[in-house]
């Protein structure tokens, strides 16, 4: 076939393939792609660093001690899991305001069958998960099939599920869970073998995967990162893991709850980035009509996401119950907003289709650090609320400004 070389023959597809050094646009392209990818997290990482520095100085070094960091990470487990649920829904361009109520209601189901029906830990937990999934199906039915705005459905849902919680718990205001296995979920520390072994095995698998993919790209003649860059990246991941696990080990070990929440985030990152399901989720969030025309079943996608979100909320509720050893009829007022705030602070767009599930970790760390640090400084709840509100606005503003300055990221 003849190639059209009439004008501007610098076909960029070709340019990309050519030697990086011979192409002057290469470096700017790299910078921009960095801004899109890893550097998209820069504002929130800077925020986190400033918060850490401030508390480290004002608390006289207590903040970064292994003991406090262990506490801090355990405090944000529930927010992280709930926030993962929020991210899924936000990526779709929808919102779920019933997450906190669902978490508590499902936890109540677990506690009730455990305490009154003497169900074992596993069936009790499964019961909570099934109830969560059913609630998600109900939400999804109204939102995807009847096309009622998710804001209304889940707002009404949050009231309804709070009522369901009262119904399940009966007259009591709190129900204490006696089952040792459920109580042990959150406060347990992993043995050093698992604490060290699991992250290293996962990281090694990741490294092998990345390297294998690189070899395939080389074979297919596609541009690849320099092997030194790749090795540095993987080394960085390993160094991070060593540092974190080492810190945990100097206190009591890696908390099981932290490992569970990290596992959930990692699993959903893989689902969102590496599977057709994840790709379709981003597509529906980006342009629902385009997704529909591409043959994606948008209704099934929405049902699936709301079901997943409510099931994750049930997981969060289970962890919450394990940590406090009881279920209360009172639903924490800040839990839902913190979960959504963590996602938004981490850069997940409220308008759908944009953001990474890793946002959850960063966002939850920001919120958790403020809470934890202000507690260390013996600040009143009033001050904590004001500071948290201010930081949320600042983080979202910084994100909006970065986005506007960098049109590559779009809306």
């Amino acid at each position, binding site marked *: 076939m003849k190639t059209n070389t009439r004008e501007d023959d*610098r076909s960029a597809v070709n340019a990309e393939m050519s030697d990086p050094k011979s192409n002057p646009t290469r470096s700017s392209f790299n910078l921009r792609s960095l801004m899109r990818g890893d550097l998209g997290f820069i504002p929130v990482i800077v925020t986190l660093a400033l918060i850490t520095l401030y508390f480290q100085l004002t608390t006289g070094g207590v903040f970064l001690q292994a003991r406090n960091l262990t506490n801090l990470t355990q405090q944000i487990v529930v927010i992280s899991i709930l926030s993962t649920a929020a991210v899924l829904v936000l990526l779709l361009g929808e919102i779920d305001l019933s997450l906190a109520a669902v978490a508590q209601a499902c936890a109540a189901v677990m506690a009730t069958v455990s305490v009154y029906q003497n169900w074992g830990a596993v069936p009790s937990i499964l019961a909570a998960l099934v109830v969560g999934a059913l609630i998600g199906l109900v939400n999804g039915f109204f939102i995807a099939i009847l096309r009622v705005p998710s804001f209304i459905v889940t707002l009404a849902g949050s009231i309804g599920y709070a009522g369901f919680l009262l119904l399940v718990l009966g007259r009591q205001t709190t129900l204490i869970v006696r089952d040792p296995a459920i109580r042990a979920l959150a406060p347990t520390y992993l043995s050093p073998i698992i604490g060290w072994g699991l992250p290293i095995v996962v990281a090694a698998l990741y490294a092998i995967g990345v390297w294998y993919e690189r070899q395939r790209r080389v074979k297919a003649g596609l541009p690849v990162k320099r092997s030194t860059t790749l090795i540095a990246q993987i080394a960085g991941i390993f160094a991070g893991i060593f540092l974190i696990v080492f810190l945990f080990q100097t206190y009591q070990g890696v908390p099981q709850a932290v490992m569970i929440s990290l596992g959930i985030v990692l699993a959903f990152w893989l689902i969102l980035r590496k*599977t057709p399901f994840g*790709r379709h989720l981003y597509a529906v969030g980006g342009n629902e009509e385009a997704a529909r025309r591409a043959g*994606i079943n948008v209704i099934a996608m929405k049902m699936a996401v709301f079901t997943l979100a409510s099931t994750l909320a049930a997981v969060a509720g289970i962890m919450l119950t394990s940590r406090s050893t009881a279920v209360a009829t009172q639903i924490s007022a800040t839990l839902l907003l913190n979960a959504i705030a963590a996602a938004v602070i981490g850069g997940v767009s409220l308008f759908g289709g944009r953001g990474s599930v890793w946002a959850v970790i960063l966002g939850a760390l920001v919120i958790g650090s403020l809470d934890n640090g202000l507690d260390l400084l013996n600040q009143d709840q009033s001050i904590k609320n004001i500071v948290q509100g201010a930081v949320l606005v600042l983080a979202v503003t910084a994100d909006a400004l970065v986005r506007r300055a960098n049109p590559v990221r779009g809306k």
Partner: protein
Amino acid sequence: MNNSVLPTQSDTSVDRSIPRLQLRKINKSFGGVQALKNVDFEVYAGEVVGLVGDNGAGKSTLVKTMSGAYVPDSGEILIDGSPVTISSPQDATRLGIETVYQDLALCDNLDVVANLWLGREAYRWVIPGVLKALDETEMERRTIEVLRTLDVKIPSVRRPVAALSGGQRQCIAVAKTILRQPKVVLLDEPTAALGVAQTRQVLNLIMRLKQQGLAVVVISHNLHDVFEVCDRTIVMRLGQRSATFDIKNSTSEQVVAAITGAEYRDAPVSSSEMI
């Protein structure tokens, strides 16, 4: 999925014997308004047909009949000479008719590769029968292949579509349909709201499609573009096919006259009469 990116037509010259897509005596009414009256239409492989006409002349209705969005009240549709029924857009796609609408239907948040393969992603089984992972390498390789075949120039296939220019977006939307190996491509106002250089890019792409042996239908208001890329122009007026021009032997004045219904002398040979 087969390995070649584009259908390989050995003979790229226009085969005038049997139209790739033909419509006969199509009628379509909306309530009391008859939008199409006994309209005939034909496009051959390796040919670009311009569909022009004033607003409300029936261009869009006719194209939507071909793309399956409307079902005609009466009339016949034939592909390669054999009659077919198109009662939904899925039917049209299955029969090899692809439409690129004005709104392009791209996901701004996804990159070029993701958009091109949306809904038909290449994947590998991680755990056979249970878990499948996207095969990004394969998709990226074939994306670059398609874009090179179509001579589409974009900065990077890993860039979100939001970062591309209007012309580039149009090209991506067209390339997306090409991956499905269609026989007929319908383009709705492909150069509307594009700058000079971007229009150039899209027109080049249309010529490429023609070279690949596809039958291309272009709806356009821009006669300059029509004269640049089309082999024939079919003029719609008041729901009827009012004239057909062979581009080589006609002037834009004649086409404008046919669109507006003004009198014109030296009526050109209508190829519809030759059928």
